[in-house]
């Protein structure tokens, strides 16, 4: 049977579209429902993050990192302060390290819950989205309890954190984890193993490991292709080497390795691993200690440069910081994991249908704030 080629139509998906996860524009060449070419057009959310950083002191940069990946602001704070501390060769108290890991892992759960829920929404299931947001809300409540903010925290400072954990935080956190763990089963019953959901995601948008590596894809998207790479294990920063957890990889459970379902399911598994880390960290955290103790009065890193990487919910977040010894950085460069994930979209979607493009884009879990910066 020969393939009939009709007239091609150029379709703009976005910048205002329900499923582009922000202000992303996709220039799509279609032949009926079939996509022949797809070009992401980015820059609608560009806020000159890197240029701004060249005119601000080191601690003033932190609120800007919040606004890059606004769904995982804690993780972005974490990445930046770890880089500056490494440049200054600053050692933070143990308690600060524990608090940071706890916050980063809660943030990972919150971010993955949103990613999974919105993915359900992209596929057309509305209820799982609200179930997951309901549970994410409780994490945000805990963040609010700690630092007063629910989305953009400015919580981690160079050398410490802005507030100590409030009274009763550890108990609240344990209560949440006890409540949350059975919920994962509910999500699985409702969405993960739904026949229609599997039909829509399995075998679609297959990302082979070689392609993923050559594009620099990282995080859950890379692990879903079967590559066991997690900076928390492979290049431990902070105190991640103290905890016992697994790096989850995709296994092509419902289709082939590296399909949309794998990318979805790896996130679900990672949520479970984060719960594991949290249980250990919450049990081990030192009772007393001053979280402001190591915060330097003036942040003047020595002349030099540093490239430091951390594992955010979206993958390897790199910060390149160059210092000339003044209180203002000469250059801050951010290597964003969502950017590389979006770059691979064109490769994945060619030849698929309109609906599949939405499901592939959703499975990559991009945040435009981080792509455009």
């Amino acid at each position: 049977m020969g393939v009939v080629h009709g007239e091609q139509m150029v379709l703009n998906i976005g910048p205002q579209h329900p499923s582009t996860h922000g202000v992303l524009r996709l220039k799509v060449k279609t032949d009926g429902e079939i996509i022949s070419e797809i070009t992401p057009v980015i820059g609608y959310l560009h806020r000159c993050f890197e240029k701004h950083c060249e005119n601000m002191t080191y601690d003033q940069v932190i609120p800007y990192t919040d606004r890059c990946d606004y769904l995982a602001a804690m993780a972005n704070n974490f990445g930046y302060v770890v880089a500056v501390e490494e440049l200054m060769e600053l050692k933070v108290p143990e308690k600060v390290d524990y608090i940071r890991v706890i916050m980063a892992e809660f943030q990972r759960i919150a971010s993955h819950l949103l990613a999974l829920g919105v993915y359900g929404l992209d596929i057309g299931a509305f209820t799982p989205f609200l179930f997951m947001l309901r549970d994410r809300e409780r994490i945000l409540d805990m963040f609010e309890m700690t630092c007063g903010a629910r989305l953009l925290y400015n919580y981690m400072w160079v050398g410490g954190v802005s507030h100590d954990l409030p009274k009763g935080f550890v108990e609240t956190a344990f209560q949440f984890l006890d409540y949350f763990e059975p919920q994962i089963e509910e999500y699985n019953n409702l969405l993960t193993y739904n026949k229609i959901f599997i039909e829509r995601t399995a075998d679609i948008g297959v990302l082979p490991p070689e392609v993923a590596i050559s594009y620099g894809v990282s995080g859950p998207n890379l692990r879903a292709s079967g590559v066991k790479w997690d900076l928390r294990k492979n290049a431990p920063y902070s105190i991640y080497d103290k905890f016992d957890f697994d790096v989850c990889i995709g296994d092509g459970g419902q289709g082939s390795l590296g399909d949309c379902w794998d990318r979805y399911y790896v996130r679900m598994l990672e949520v479970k691993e984060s719960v594991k880390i949290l249980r250990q960290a919450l049990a081990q955290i030192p009772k007393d200690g001053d979280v402001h103790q190591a915060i330097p009065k003036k942040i003047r890193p020595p002349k030099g440069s540093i490239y430091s990487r951390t594992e955010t919910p979206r993958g390897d977040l790199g910060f390149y910081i160059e210092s000339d010894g003044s209180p203002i950085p000469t250059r801050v460069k951010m290597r964003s994991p969502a950017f590389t994930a979006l770059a691979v979209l064109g490769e994945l979607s060619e030849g698929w249908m309109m609906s599949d493009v939405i499901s592939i884009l959703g499975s990559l879990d991009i945040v435009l704030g981080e792509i455009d910066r």
Partner: protein
Amino acid sequence: MTVDLLFSWLSSLTSTIEDSSILLLVAIIIPCVALFLVMAVNAIVMVYVERKVAAFMQDRVGPMGQGVGLHAGKWGLLQTVADALKLLTKEDIIPEKADKFLFILAPFVIFIGAFIAIVAVPFGETVIVADFNIGIFYILAMGSLGVIGIIIAGWSSNNKWSLYGGMRSAAQIVSYEIPAGLSIIVIIMLTGTLSMQGIIEYQSGGMGNWIIFANPFAFIAFLIYFISVIAETNRTPFDIPEAESELVGGFHTEYSGMRWSFFFLSEYANMLVVCAVAAAGFLGGWHSPIPGYFDSNGWGIFWMLSKIVFLIFIMMWFRWTFPRLRVDQLMNVCWKVFLPISLINIFGVGVWTLIFG
């Protein structure tokens, strides 16, 4: 039937009026207005119920009011009324590049399709506007008028998303008519009549006589019919013509205000019609489940409505549970699964009737 009854009743009342054509006109207009009210009330109630059902399934409270007056009433009962008022007062936007005539025409075509289908829907032993001898066939035919309106809407908007939605729904609705129609044939084979009242009469005498329990093939026919009509009414998991996350709004992307609400009105009216056909054709219509138990005329309306509401609730349950199928998967289900099963079904019912009936 009702028009004739109404006409004779009116002429007996007013013996002074000589010209009977005026009376005939009145006798026609009264049921029309009544049906329109049924549709409007149905939409208002169903939107409210849909929101409450969704809220119940999603651990929310749904529309809530703080009191009476302008605060959407107690339990948000006036929410849809307020929404309808809002839609009425909204600016009516017609895109500059749209085909204006067709753009204005489309909502009415869809609306009329749903409206004239209700004419043959029986709500009680005597509560039916017109009991045609081809009633069920008529409803099927009129139910598919709506797709023309959807295509017109998709085409005339001059918007790529609308066009996608229109094309998708054309393929979808036309395809799903076939398994739905073939399932209806099972009813016709068993009852030997096309009249809605005749079909319901056949099922008198309790649940055991309902067609859904008549034989296993009829049960399968009911399932196929019900799933097919969900596709025909564009509801999740078959809501690809208006798939929000893909096509923005599908065929009604460019519509706003009252024109948009006509699509909504028709969607809920269509749900009412297809569920009424399912209730009348498979679930005994206005008959009580137990013979002699609240089986008088007035209760007939209650039984019919509760069966319809139950089926509509299942449709809502589907909508808030399932993801959406892709357009080619949808076609696969229709042509490769439902169509063969429906054909086997017809054969099976024939054999069953020969052996047991």
